[in-house]
């Protein structure tokens, strides 16, 4: 059963990856990355149970926290970039 869930999560991750590669705007890519991160957190906890190595939940926890920081960083980067572009357009 764990294996079935892990496979389904992998399929979902693949779909998200396609969106990240296609995604017309930067925001679509960020959204896809965010989804990918969530799916990874779930996948890691499921795989931890699959291998009976339940300490792996620790890693899932770190992921849940750090992928958030990365999303915020990318958003800030986009905002800075946009602002700089319009600054250069004005000057």
């Amino acid at each position, binding site marked *: 059963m764990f294996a079935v869930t892990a496979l389904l999560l992998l399929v979902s991750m693949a779909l998200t990856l396609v969106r990240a590669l296609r995604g017309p705007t930067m925001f679509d*890519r960020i959204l896809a990355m965010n989804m990918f*991160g969530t799916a990874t957190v779930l996948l890691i906890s499921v795989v931890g149970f699959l291998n009976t190595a339940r300490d792996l939940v*620790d890693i899932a*926890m770190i992921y849940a926290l750090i992928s958030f*920081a990365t999303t*915020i960083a990318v958003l800030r980067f986009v905002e800075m970039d946009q602002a700089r572009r319009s600054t250069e357009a004005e000057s």
Partner: protein
Amino acid sequence: MLFGMYSLVSASFFVVVDAADVAMTEAAVGAGVSTILMLSTLAATGYTVRKRPPRRELLAIVVAIAVGGALLYGTLDMPRFGAPNAPLHQHPVAHHYIQVSPKETGIPNMVTPLLASYRGYDTFGEVLVVFTAGIGVLALIGRRPRENGELAPEDGFVDHTATRHRVLRVVAKTLIPPILLYAWYIQAHGDYGPGGGFQAGVVLAAGMMLYLLIFGVDRTEKLVRPRTLECLIALGVLVYGGVGLVNMAQGGNFLDYRTLVHDEKHAIHYGILAVELGVGITVAAVMTTILFTFAGHLRNLLGTAYMANLSRRSNQGAQSA
């Protein structure tokens, strides 16, 4: 950003092949710190690449394929994936690390004593490399280059992320204490579960990174002064080396923990804990310093006009939302 996703994938691969400690490090490093460093460099240098006629591409492809083919040919004789009779697993050292080390040191996580005790010299060298890299980054782009009349914080510069994203600010304030606490848990729990100095240092730096992203460089530097960080970088290496020197003073070899206290098992355990603490301090301080330095450089680079534009836009956003 795809780079960040890539490291997510590789970390899940490490999970699948039972490398818990490695996956934890890769999670914090790949998804957090190194992605942020890449992004801030891109923000400082601009990320559109001029299209130019390919010159060396063909040669590069040929070389890459040739080397890849040679490697592929070489793999034909390699042991199969997961084969228990591979030479690596048959070597007596592997047997010692797996069978003897939990009895010898009383530490269930085999990675930790291997890192801090059996291969203690090696790890000392690695910590020195991290130390040197931190010094190098400081020397190259330094703190606060102000020669071109750059913007000082007193000039009315305010980082608007904190005021604009109120939700972000509140949530970050809730989340940062658990992250920092969790880093200490990893540090202290490294003997029994996945964790240790390297992981704890990187996770601690990731927590600081979140604060830095939302509240800006100036407020973060009031919280943790760069001077303190510089002292901490040195302190970690000194703790590590100091344990070795204490061993020598007590008549043992460098980093031979058995001389520390009377009971050998306890002595090794204490030695490993002290060394891991040194590693954790240095790694956390170096990573945080690197992040501060990059953020400070970026802020100084982007100048007043840009900041004015950013704040104007931010105000518009705040009004409409």
